[in-house]
C-alpha cells in the first residue's frame, strides 16, 4: 500500500475533490489530504476499517459497493480512486464505468494475476496461486474477479478508456527488472490513471 501511495499521490491534482472507493483504514485519503490538500470522502463497509478512518479524522461513509454509485451525480468528483478492490467487486466492469461517470478521472490498482509466480504456481503445482499479492486460499479468497494486466488493457480499449498514466509495481528485484519489458509477466500490482476517451 505504501508503495502504491506515492505513485497515486503524484497523479492527484492539488486540492482535488476525491472519492475513495473501498477506502479501507483511510490511510490513502489521509495522505492525500495532508500532502495534496484534497477534500473528499472514503466509502467503506467494514466497521473495523470505518473505525480506523474515524480515528484518522477523515470523512468516511459506510456503504456496500454493489454495482452503481447512483447517489453521486455525473462529474461530481475530480478523481475517483479504488485501490486493490476491483477484484472483489461483484460487477467490476460496472463499477469502473461508474467511477468514470462520477469522476472526471479515476485511479485503479489491482493485483496482476498474470504475474510469473501465479502462472508457475498453477502450471507446475497445479494449485490455485497463493502469492504475496494474492495471499488467499481458493476457499477463503475475496477475489472473485481477478484479471491480468493484459485483460485490463483489453477491457480499457474495448470501453475506450484512456490511460493518462500507468505504473507497474513489483517488489521482487527480478520482477522489477523484467516488468519494463514484459509487464504482464512481472508486474505484481498494476496502477492505472484513467479517463474516458475524448467525449465526442
Amino acid at each position: 500500500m505504501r508503495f502504491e501511495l506515492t505513485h497515486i499521490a503524484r497523479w492527484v491534482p492539488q486540492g482535488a475533490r476525491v472519492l475513495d472507493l473501498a477506502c479501507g483504514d483511510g490511510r490513502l485519503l489521509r495522505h492525500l489530504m495532508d500532502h495534496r490538500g484534497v477534500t473528499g470522502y472514503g466509502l467503506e463497509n467494514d466497521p473495523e476499517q470505518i473505525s480506523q478512518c474515524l480515528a484518522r479524522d477523515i470523512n468516511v461513509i459506510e456503504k456496500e459497493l454493489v454495482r452503481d454509485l447512483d447517489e453521486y451525480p455525473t462529474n461530481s468528483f475530480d478523481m475517483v480512486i479504488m485501490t486493490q478492490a476491483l477484484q472483489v467487486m461483484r460487477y467490476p466492469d460496472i463499477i469502473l464505468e461508474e467511477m468514470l461517470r462520477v469522476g472526471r478521472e479515476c485511479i485503479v490498482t489491482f493485483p496482476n494475476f498474470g504475474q510469473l509466480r501465479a502462472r508457475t504456481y498453477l502450471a507446475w503445482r497445479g494449485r490455485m496461486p497463493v502469492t504475496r499479492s494474492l495471499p488467499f486460499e481458493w476457499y477463503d479468497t475475496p477475489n472473485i474477479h481477478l484479471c491480468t494486466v493484459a485483460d485490463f488493457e483489453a477491457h480499457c480499449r474495448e470501453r475506450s478508456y484512456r490511460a493518462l498514466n500507468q505504473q507497474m509495481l513489483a517488489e521482487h528485484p527480478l520482477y522489477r527488472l523484467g516488468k519494463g519489458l514484459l509487464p504482464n509477466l512481472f508486474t505484481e500490482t498494476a496502477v492505472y490513471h484513467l479517463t474516458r476517451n475524448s467525449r465526442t
Partner: protein
Amino acid sequence: MAQLPADSVGLVTPQRATIDKPLALSCGQVLDSYELVYETYGELNAARDNAVLICHALSGHHHAAGYHTGVEGEKLGWWDSCIGPGKAIDTNKFFVVVPNNIGGCHGSTGPRTVNPNTGRVWGPDFPPLRFRDWVNSQAQLADLLGIEVWAAVIGGSLGGMQAMRWSLEYPERVRHCLLIATAMNLTPQNIAFNELARRAITSDPNFADGWFLEKGVAPVKGLALARMIGHVTYISQHQMEERFGRELHEGTFERGTNSPIRFEIESYLNYKGDRFAEEFDANTYLLITRMLDVYDLAREYDHDAVKAFSHARARFLVVSFTTDWRFSPERSQQIVNALVGAGRDVSYANIDSQLGHDAFLAPIPRYVDTLRQYLGNIPVGGAA
C-alpha cells in the same frame, strides 16, 4: 445514599434560566419572556469552545445524565451511558448543556406552565411551534451561558432534526453536528402513526379539549394508548420476537380452562403506556407530534436538501441503525448524500442492531465507539 460510579457525572441539580428577551415564534406570536430548565455537566473552559448541546427526543428532557437523589434504584439520566467523565461524550473535555425544550412538560415554558397574559395554564392555547423556535430559544440560552459557538450539537431522532436545523439557522455557531437516527422530514407513514396517537389522546373524554389540568382530570387512557402506538414503531419485529415471543404474561392455553390470556408483549406495552401517561403532558404530545409532521428541512431552500446544507458550516456525523424502521437507514443516507452534494464534511455509520429506533438510546459498543472517536477528534481549548 448509594455509591455512585466513577464514570458518572454524579449528583446533578436542574437549573432554570429566565429569558427576558422576547422570542418571536414562527406562528407570529411572541413570547415576551420564557423559562428554560436545563442541566449542565462538566465545565466551560477559558476559551469557551468546549460546549456541547444535546437536543432531546420526543419523550426526553433536560435530565440526560447522572442522579437527582442518589437513592438506590433511582432512574438515571436518559443518556447516562454516553455522558460522563471518560465516556463517549466526555465531561472531562466537554461542557454539556441539555435544555428541556419549550412546549415540553418537564419544567420549561409549555402547556403546563402559566400564561402570564391570562393567569391561566397555557394548556391547548400554547402557541404552535416550529423547530426553529426551539433553536432560537436555545441560542438565547447559549448567549446567557456565554457560549458563542457550540463544539457540537448532538441529537437523536427528533433531536437530530433539531440539530440539523441548528446547523442551518446558526451556521457560524455550530462546529460539529451529530445526527443520530433521524430524517430531513417525516414519511407519510410516520405522520400516520402520529395521527393515530393524536386521535387516541383527543378521543379521551378526560382530554377536555386540552383543559384537563384546569378541570383536575388527566387523559391518561388516551395518552397511554398514544405511547403504546408510538412504542410499537420504536422497536423492531426481531426485537419483539426475541424479547417477548408469544410468551404469556398470564393465563393458560390448557383445555378445560377459561382464564383470560395476556401475552407478554401486551403487558409490556400497557406498562410502558401507563408509566408514560403518568408523567407526560397530552398537550405537549400533540404539539410536538404536529411539529414533527410539519418539519421539512429543505422546504425553504426550494425543497433542495443540497441547497439547504450548502448554508451549513459544520462538520457532520450521521448514524443510523439497521433495524430502525421509524427513521430508517435510507433516511439517514439521504442526509449523507445531500451533505456530500453540498461539499460538507460528513462521516456515516450504519450500526448493526436489532433494537429498532430505540437503539439510539442503547449502549451498543460500535455506536458508542463511533461517537467517542468522532468527538475525540474535536479540538478544544483554543487549539487549532
